[in-house]
């Protein structure tokens, strides 16, 4: 079975190596450091008079790049059953993600909803990774 969209297996390891530190640092920054602005490095490189937090930018880029590599890399032995798991995990992740978003839209307003939107940038990919690996481990058992 050939599939055009997937990267070779070794990119999966690279993906994990980028994703995990960025995710941990991102969560730490979000929960611990966000309120203390002195701790964040603020630079302006590209734009005059526009300040942005380079740490956040790098961490978001890291999480997205890592998650994309993990999601779009082949398994060690990629075959039709794994592809079926892949497809069903995509469907599951998108459904769960948008169901949560739907209810959050009804329950939260203003800045709290904006925070949820921010987290929502990553959740589709993360839900997929969790679901796919769960199915993979479950189907490994005898």
């Amino acid at each position: 079975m050939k599939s055009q969209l997937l990267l070779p297996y070794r990119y999966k390891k690279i993906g994990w190596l980028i994703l995990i530190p960025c995710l941990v640092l991102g969560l730490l920054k979000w929960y611990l450091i966000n309120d203390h602005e002195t701790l964040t490095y603020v630079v302006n490189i590209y734009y005059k008079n526009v300040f942005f937090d380079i740490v956040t930018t790098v961490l978001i880029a890291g999480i997205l790049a890592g998650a994309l590599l993990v999601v779009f890399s082949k398994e060690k032995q990629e075959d039709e059953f794994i592809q079926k798991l892949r497809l069903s995990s995509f469907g599951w992740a998108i459904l769960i993600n948008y169901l949560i978003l739907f209810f959050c839209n009804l329950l939260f307003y203003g800045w709290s909803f904006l925070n949820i939107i921010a987290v929502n940038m990553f959740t589709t990919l993360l839900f997929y990774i969790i679901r796919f690996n769960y199915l993979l481990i479950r189907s490994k058992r005898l």
Partner: protein
Amino acid sequence: MTNTLKVERAIKNITQEELAQCIGVSRQTINAIEKKKYVPSTLLALKIARYFDKPVEAIFKLEPED
């Protein structure tokens, strides 16, 4: 769909892992087929049948509800 893969495997005395390697799929696939959680594609069914040197119908059979 039912199958006799586990029996065929026992006759040949090979593990899921060995069979998977011979056919070029993952062990999860063989496991899922044996547990009837996955219906293989025609291509894979033919490969499995060729490996055991039997017709496909000897290994994979339709059930009344199919």
